[in-house]
């Protein structure tokens, strides 16, 4: 700041002495800079406590070679102590730049209430407030679902307004463009299931039942669930981020002031696109999973392709398939709702967009797994 930086710099040093008239003299020497180790204010503090208490502090900076904010922080700490003890500070001995900056820092007094107070609550109070705060998000979610139902009603009467081209684009993004990742995940899940089954079933010489295992598992559960989880991570997050950044950028406000409901214009096409694509993606995932199992069956277990195929078609019935696809449609609705809800709830900063996307994925996956559990119980009770 003042003196040019030269290496090696003298380390900052502080000498405290009492002058004859009872004033405290602080002699600063060396380079008082942020990268150096600044002497603690404890020495000064101790000197101020001593009796008789000094009336005045003055400074000697003849030996000061360089200074920056480190010196300013040190001095403002001292002046805080002094103003509390009503000791006058004589700043005449300081470099003129330091004097001006200190005056500038003190020019505007601290605004009352500017410092944020954090109240310490007992754990019981915290649990209580936490529980009471649960209510709001649930209410918001219910309100969102309700609004969405109204918008759907308008859609059925042919009065919902959104751009067909947006819907087509979303269908492409949530459907066709997801095929790659669904292919990979489903094939591998089928493969893994086959390996798990093969080890056990071979012990009984019943390796052919790998086909049943993979087929039923994929079609009834895993196809829908894996598609759901992949889409929650891929599309749910994308929905939340898209809607969230539109909100940050005031694009949602622009829609509202045009008299266009963002729910109709932005959320509805996304929900429709995902509801249409999830069942199709689920069927595709079922197929790929069975192919994965078949790859293990044919190559490792040496089962003939036709026998494996026949075994699968016997094991998997139409009700299994319908059940799986139905689950996928429900997961689709859940993913779309959680993604869009988190996007619409997004705050007004870029970090809020990230939080919205994270929250959308978490909410989506929690919903899917919960629904999956409920379906398992219901399907078992109904004997499907």
């Amino acid at each position, binding site marked *: 700041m003042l003196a040019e930086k030269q290496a090696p710099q003298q380390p900052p040093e502080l000498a405290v002495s009492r002058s004859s008239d009872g004033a405290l003299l602080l002699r600063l020497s060396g380079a008082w800079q942020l990268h150096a180790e600044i002497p603690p204010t404890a020495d000064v503090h101790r000197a101020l406590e001593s009796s008789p208490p000094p009336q005045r502090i003055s400074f000697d900076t003849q030996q000061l070679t360089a200074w920056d904010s480190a010196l300013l922080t040190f001095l403002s700490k001292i002046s805080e102590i002094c103003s509390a003890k009503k000791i006058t500070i004589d*700043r005449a001995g300081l470099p003129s730049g330091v*004097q*001006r900056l*200190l*005056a*500038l820092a003190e*020019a*505007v007094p601290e605004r009352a209430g500017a410092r944020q107070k954090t109240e310490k609550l007992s754990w019981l109070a915290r649990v209580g407030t936490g529980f009471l705060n649960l209510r709001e998000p649930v209410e918001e979610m219910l309100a969102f679902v309700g609004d969405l139902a109204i918008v759907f009603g308008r859609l059925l009467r042919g009065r919902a*307004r959104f*751009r067909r081209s*947006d819907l087509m*684009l979303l269908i492409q993004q949530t459907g066709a463009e997801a095929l790659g990742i669904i292919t990979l995940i489903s094939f591998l899940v089928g493969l893994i299931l086959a390996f798990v089954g093969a080890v056990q079933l071979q012990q009984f010489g019943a390796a052919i039942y790998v086909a049943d295992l993979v087929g039923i598992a994929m079609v009834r559960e895993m196809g829908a669930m894996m598609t759901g989880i992949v889409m929650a991570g891929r599309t749910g997050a994308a929905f939340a981020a898209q809607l969230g950044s*539109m909100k940050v*950028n*005031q*694009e949602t*406000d*622009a*829609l*509202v*002031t*045009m*008299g*266009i409901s963002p729910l109709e214009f932005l959320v509805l096409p996304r929900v429709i696109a995902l509801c249409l694509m999830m069942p199709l993606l689920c069927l595709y995932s079922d197929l790929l999973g069975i192919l994965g199992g078949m790859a293990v069956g044919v190559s490792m277990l040496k089962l003939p392709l036709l026998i494996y195929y026949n075994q699968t078609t016997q094991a998997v019935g139409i009700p299994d398939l319908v059940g799986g696809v139905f689950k996928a449609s429900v997961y689709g609705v859940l993913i779309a709702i959680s993604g869009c809800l988190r996007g619409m709830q997004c705050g007004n900063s870029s970090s809020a967009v990230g939080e919205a996307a994270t929250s959308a994925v978490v909410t989506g996956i929690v919903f899917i797994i919960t629904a999956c559990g409920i379906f398992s119980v219901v399907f078992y009770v109904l004997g499907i």
Partner: protein
Amino acid sequence: MSSGSETAGNVPQTDGQAESAAPTDAKAHITVRDLTMAFGSFVLMHDLNFTIQHGDVFIIMGGSGCGKSTLLRHLIGLIEPAKGEIWYGTENFTRADPARRQRMLQRFGVLYQSGALWSSMTLAENIGLPLGEYTDLKPVEIREVASLKLALVGLKGFEDFYPSQISGGMQKRAGLARAMALDPEVLFFDEPSAGLDPISSKLLDDLILELRDSLGSTIVVVTHELASIFAIGSNSMFLDVETRTMSALGPPKELVHSDNANVRRFLTRGEENGAAGRPHG
């Protein structure tokens, strides 16, 4: 200007509060009565009363964080007032039912601070969207109107650009073209010169005046750009962050001689009496 204490109207009430009577001044376009803006228990501004006349360029000014933009968001219905009412002509905007409010919204044009163009649409589609929603124009005609609006703001030939492909100043002008799409009766501007160089900012000011003169629109501008305030403002209000209410109402050129020291200081960049300058030790 009619006062808010007239006998209550006989419009059916939706809640317990009595509704004040419709403004009687035929020239009053926007009437704000006893408006209080609050977030929860925190009151941002209270008891705002002002009238904006037809054809005014009305400036809402005040220091940073005083609630200028929030007042604008109240005026366009994005935030509901904690107390008070907003009237457009003789229609109560605050108490209008959703269908009626939507009809009123169609007569507004808003230019947001960042332009707020819909990023997934081209400029022509941005401008065409409100036209498609509220008119019976054919797609070809919509495209023609969109081109005209873009030409008006100096963006001829940019119809098929996406917002991300053009500069910030151009986005702002395209946002203005969209705000003008339906030939609105009221145009709202949120910090129009923020982020613009002095020349672009001057051009935008000229455009605002031109729109007022040619379309006859009423214009409401939120800004703290002094040059703009004096160049375009025909009337203005000052939101005082210290008293949490409006402390002056009148044409900016007259407010320079206001009795209120905060207003004077704002309009003279604090140079008038030096009180705003920071002391140097």
